[in-house]
């Protein structure tokens, strides 16, 4: 029947297209109040009090402040963030108090009737100020985390290289802008705390609630509602929102629903970390790379959240998809008084991949080499070792990605025929005033490439520590004849197709049709902790546990069949007739040869990497510097595509987010406040901005991956888009940009200053 490898229609599709899928704002409970948040207007200050307008009629309005919070910490990696500010306010929009009321008008007015009284303190707004300790806002030195990776002797090797190049590459904030804003419905009953919400990681919320309210496992239930996109934005933040809704529910004695509006969502929730990367490299005149030294500097915002993990992934991807004999990487994340940055698809890697890919183009420029050839020459291969000393023993499909991308895009021809015809031709020649009546070309075309990798699963010993679990139940079917199977996992469906892919994997291993495999709504009282839905780990890691549990049930049933005869279903029914429920629960087993040392940052950073090559063809209007993406080729090694259609959908969606990051999106932050927290001015691509994608799946299987070799690809497509676009713009116009974004104003300014 071969379900794996087929583009079966997504299981949650019919409910979504019929409008019957229930997102959190579509749910309510009898007597529910609406909740809202009072936030800090300033980036830093001392909270002196909260004034309640005495003229306002407070009847029926619930107000919660820090005093009402049992344990005032948000339990994430560290416990530095309060649920509600009580003393020092550390960023604009930091929650200060909560309000609940019967209806939205009362709610809006009650919120306006509260005024935080804050004595401003000088804020630390930039990374430079944080490092200079303009004020002490975190620990002794304002540093959240530092990582070092080293292999060989980079400094010495660079010094003795014939070609030494240095560059500095900056990337900016990015807002996830999932179309469904964050929301949570909370209530209490005799069994404790209940939450239903838009979220990626039910057990993160679970942990936070247990900590703040000092509850045990059994008294907290967190259920995922159908979730309208996450992209990392609903990874750690929902914990805070859940705590807020629960506090209001507790104090009011009523269920409470909190739904952020768009502006609040953009202002208050986490974003991609801005980053600055300095690269120094050494190679020979033929373009054989030998050594690289990289410094990564990240702005973590006001609280730790997931910053250390993001920083670690940034460092681990900083040397790119290339072979370097000598590597030195130092990565530092600092605190500033800006809204906390956190998880966003790619998780640090897009920032450092941007840098290394722009640097590869710099080397190509210096050597007058074809940028794709230079990359090909230095690609990692099976048998090579990465900067952490990880030996690549299989599934390195990057060479094939490059070959396919080169072919599909017509690279060779376009590289020669498009662009600033001769590489040495000065930009000004292109922009020279045309004589009256002449029809000088006002548009320039170019093509550019990027090559990248993305480690699938948690970094280092993460999976080993986490021990993700999945259970599959065998259940009596509705007719009593055909047994059903139910997958219980905390991995959530957030649009990426978890439910469909898991059902495919399980059905295939059980030799049953897909309609006999159900997917339990992720609820912490029903599903085991499979770990969070992050880090491109869902299909590859959790999917492999699903596969093992399904295989186990199949083997048990098959065993029974051989003993007692009849069909598979007969045997299954005999098993179900027993007293014990028929269930298989499996725990992730890290392959024995994957070893990692957290102290030295050496070993197998990831079980395996997914690889990709992106090629962009652009046209730049030389009058207005608007960039149109004419074509985009995304060729990615996914190991094995369980569902090619869903897989391509992931790649296209992720790639457009990367293109948007480069060409449209720009978060304007002044004095720690966000000036464009609206969809009208935080600009993401529309259908008319998006290119036509040619998406090619390369399959170089990973021996431990489910379905015959699948690797995690959720984040990979976010990595290569921006540098490919920048390279294409450079080819078209000669404008070299080392910093994101590439808005028309940026290209115009770069053209003028010649930088």
């Amino acid at each position, binding site marked *: 029947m071969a379900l794996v490898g087929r583009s079966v229609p997504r299981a949650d599709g*019919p409910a979504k297209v*019929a409008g019957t899928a229930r997102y959190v*704002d579509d749910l309510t409970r009898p007597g529910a109040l609406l909740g809202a948040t009072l936030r800090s207007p300033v980036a830093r200050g001392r909270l002196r009090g909260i004034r309640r307008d005495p003229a306002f009629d407070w009847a029926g309005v619930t107000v919660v402040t820090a005093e009402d919070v049992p344990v005032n910490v948000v339990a994430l990696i560290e416990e530095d963030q309060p649920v509600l500010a009580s003393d020092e306010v550390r960023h604009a929009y930091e929650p200060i108090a909560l309000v609940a009321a019967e209806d939205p008008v009362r709610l809006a007015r009650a919120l306006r009737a509260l005024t935080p009284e804050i004595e401003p303190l000088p804020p630390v707004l930039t990374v430079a100020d944080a490092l200079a300790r303009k004020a002490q806002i975190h620990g002794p030195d304002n540093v959240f985390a530092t990582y070092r990776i080293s292999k060989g002797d980079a400094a010495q090797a660079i010094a003795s290289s014939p070609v030494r190049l240095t560059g500095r590459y900056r990337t900016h904030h990015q807002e996830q802008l999932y179309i469904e804003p964050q929301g949570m419905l909370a209530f209490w009953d005799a069994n404790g705390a209940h939450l239903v919400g838009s979220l990626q990681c039910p057990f993160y919320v679970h942990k936070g609630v247990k900590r703040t309210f000092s509850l045990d496992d059994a008294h907290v239930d967190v259920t995922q509602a159908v979730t309208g996109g996450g992209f990392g934005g609903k990874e750690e933040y929902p914990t805070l929102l859940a705590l807020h809704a629960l506090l209001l529910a507790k104090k009011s004695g009523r269920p409470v629903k909190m739904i952020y509006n768009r502006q609040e969502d953009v202002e208050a929730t986490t974003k991609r970390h801005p980053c600055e990367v300095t690269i120094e490299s050494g190679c020979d005149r033929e373009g054989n790379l030998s050594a690289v030294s990289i410094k990564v500097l990240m702005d973590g915002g006001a609280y730790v959240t997931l910053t250390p993990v993001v920083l670690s992934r940034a460092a681990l991807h900083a040397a790119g998809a290339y072979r370097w004999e000598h590597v030195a990487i130092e990565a530092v994340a600092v605190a500033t008084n800006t809204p906390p940055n956190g998880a966003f698809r790619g998780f640090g890697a897009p920032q450092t991949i941007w840098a290394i890919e722009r640097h590869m183009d710099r080397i190509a420029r210096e050597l007058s080499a074809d940028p794709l050839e230079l990359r090909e020459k230095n690609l990692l291969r099976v048998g090579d070792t990465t900067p952490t000393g990880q030996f690549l023993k299989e599934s390195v499909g990057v060479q094939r990605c490059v070959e396919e991308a080169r072919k599909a895009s017509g690279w060779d021809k376009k590289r020669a025929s498009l662009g600033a015809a001769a590489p040495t031709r000065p930009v000004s020649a292109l922009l020279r005033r045309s004589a009256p009546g002449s029809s000088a070309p006002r548009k320039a075309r170019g093509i550019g490439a990027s090559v990248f990798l993305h480690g699938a699963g948690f970094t280092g010993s993460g999976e080993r520590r986490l021990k993700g679990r999945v259970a599959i139940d065998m259940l009596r079917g509705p007719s009593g004849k055909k047994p059903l199977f139910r997958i219980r996992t905390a991995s959530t469906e957030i649009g990426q197709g978890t439910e469909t892919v898991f059902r495919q994997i399980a059905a295939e291993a059980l030799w049953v049709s897909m309609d006999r495999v159900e997917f339990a709504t992720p609820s912490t009282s029903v599903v085991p902790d499979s770990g969070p839905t992050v880090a491109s780990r869902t299909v590859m890691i959790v999917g492999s546990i699903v596969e093992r549990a399904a295989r186990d049930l199949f083997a048990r049933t098959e065993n029974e069949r051989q003993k007692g005869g009849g069909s598979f279903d007969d045997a299954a029914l005999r098993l179900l007739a027993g007293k014990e429920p028929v269930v298989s629960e499996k725990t992730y087993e890290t392959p024995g040869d994957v070893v990692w040392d957290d102290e030295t940052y050496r070993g197998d950073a990831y079980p395996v990497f997914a690889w990709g090559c992106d090629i962009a063809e652009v046209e730049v209007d030389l009058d207005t510097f608007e960039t149109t993406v004419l074509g985009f080729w995304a060729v990615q090694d996914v190991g094995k595509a369980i569902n090619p259609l869903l897989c391509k959908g992931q790649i296209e969606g992720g790639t457009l987010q990367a293109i948007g990051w480069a060409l449209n999106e720009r978060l304007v932050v002044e004095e720690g406040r966000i000036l464009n927290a609206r969809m009208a001015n935080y600009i993401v691509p529309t259908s008319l901005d998006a290119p036509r994608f040619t998406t090619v799946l390369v399959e170089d299987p990973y021996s431990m991956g489910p379905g015959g070799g699948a690797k995690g690809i959720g984040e990979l497509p976010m990595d290569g888009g921006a540098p490919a676009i920048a390279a294409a713009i450079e080819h078209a116009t000669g404008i070299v940009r080392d910093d994101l974004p590439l808005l028309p104003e940026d290209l115009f300014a770069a053209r003028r200053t010649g930088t």
Partner: protein
Amino acid sequence: MRIAFVLNGKKRALDAPPLARLLDLLRGPLGLTGTKEGCGEGECGSCTVLLDGVPVNACLVVAGQCDGRTVLTVEGLGTKDGLSDLQDAFVKEGGAQCGICTPGILMAAHALLTANPQPGEGEIRESIAGNVCRCTGYQRIVESIRHAAKERASRESG
């Protein structure tokens, strides 16, 4: 104010504040939560419904302006067990991922195909340019709409 209109083919009348947003009427008293709110300012299109057959943002239309008119929402296209051909195409061709933008996009696409049964890719893209999707990169959406148009044409000719 008493507001009477034809909603998904049925006559409805209800008392509502005249300046209540159509979006809130649909999702609240009328119980039709298929229409979504993504921005409340006309930018995202996830609240798109058809007013007298034309796509509008239900977050920018007020109750008083709907009196005497017809409104079509995603619930009026088909049901979970009886999907319209367009809805079905979105399931088959991967036009929906997280699905929050999908009802709005279906309405814009429905209006397009009603007016222009065989649209080109450019026309398809233009018709959904007021509907932001952050998940798909749009390509599967365009394919879904194209697929529905093709199926219709082959049904009519066959």
